[in-house]
């Protein structure tokens, strides 16, 4: 267990490896979640333009 936030952030010099991995994962998940939502929004706005 990592006792303090500082220890958790630096992880004995390994922090950048762990946090960059987590950041990359979150970016990929966010993109894969937002793309279909944007796609549906686009269909809705096209439909409303058509009346």
């Amino acid at each position, binding site marked *: *267990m*990592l006792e303090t936030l500082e220890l*958790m952030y630096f*992880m*004995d010099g*390994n*922090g950048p*490896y*762990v946090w*960059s*991995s*987590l950041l*990359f*994962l979150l970016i*990929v*998940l966010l*993109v*894969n*979640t937002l*793309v*279909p*939502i944007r*796609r*549906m929004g686009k*269909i*809705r706005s096209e*439909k*409303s333009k058509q009346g």
Partner: protein
Amino acid sequence: MNKFWFLIKNWFIAMGSTPSFYKWATTFLPWLGILAFLTFSLGLVWGIGFAPSDYKQGDVYRILFIHVPSAILGQSIYLMMAVFGFISLVWRAKIAGMLLISAAPLGAGFTLVALVTGSIWGKPTWGTWWVWDARLTSTLILFFLYAAIIALHSSLDNKTKADRAVSILSVLGIAIVPIIKKSVDWWQTLHQPSTFSLTSSPSMTADMYQPLLMCVVGFYLVFIFMLTNSLRAEIISREKGRNWAQKQFFRREK
């Protein structure tokens, strides 16, 4: 008991219909999202913040809680796509083709995360970002397969033909999954043996293994959430002209 199986069977039959699936997904998606987010966050916080350090690798091993579930998802999504491909080819179920193409970007995403996090983990432990070793190379081929499926589907305007083409490709490409799985046993590799095995007990202690299991469950739930979300968009994109879609999707504007 018979009634239970009858209900399950009827539910699956109902989910094969796009309007029923869309209606079901719209109701359950927020709850699924909450459950997925909680399990996923709990697994990652437990693994990255509270699991003990590894005696050899120190804290860098915590990448395992991201890398292993992503790699498992990357392979099992492909397996699932091949099953949908088979169903689409044999029974011509429209929703199977839609599921296949909705799952492809998600599988590609998880495989990419497995490759990138593996590479990040490789630098401090192996001393290099990349080696052309059997496990890494076969996983890279899996990523290219996903990319090929996405590219092939988007290159064809006729969606029925596109579904058929990617179904064939996904069924043929299934050979890559056992190759990835067994690559660490068949060839001399830098990569460690599989973390999960059905035939042997885990090679790590319970206080590392339990958060890892929680992460795997969380990642699966996140995948189910994203697949449902993506499939809704695919259904609406193909069936926006149909009456049910007009009523259910565009009703907010009326």
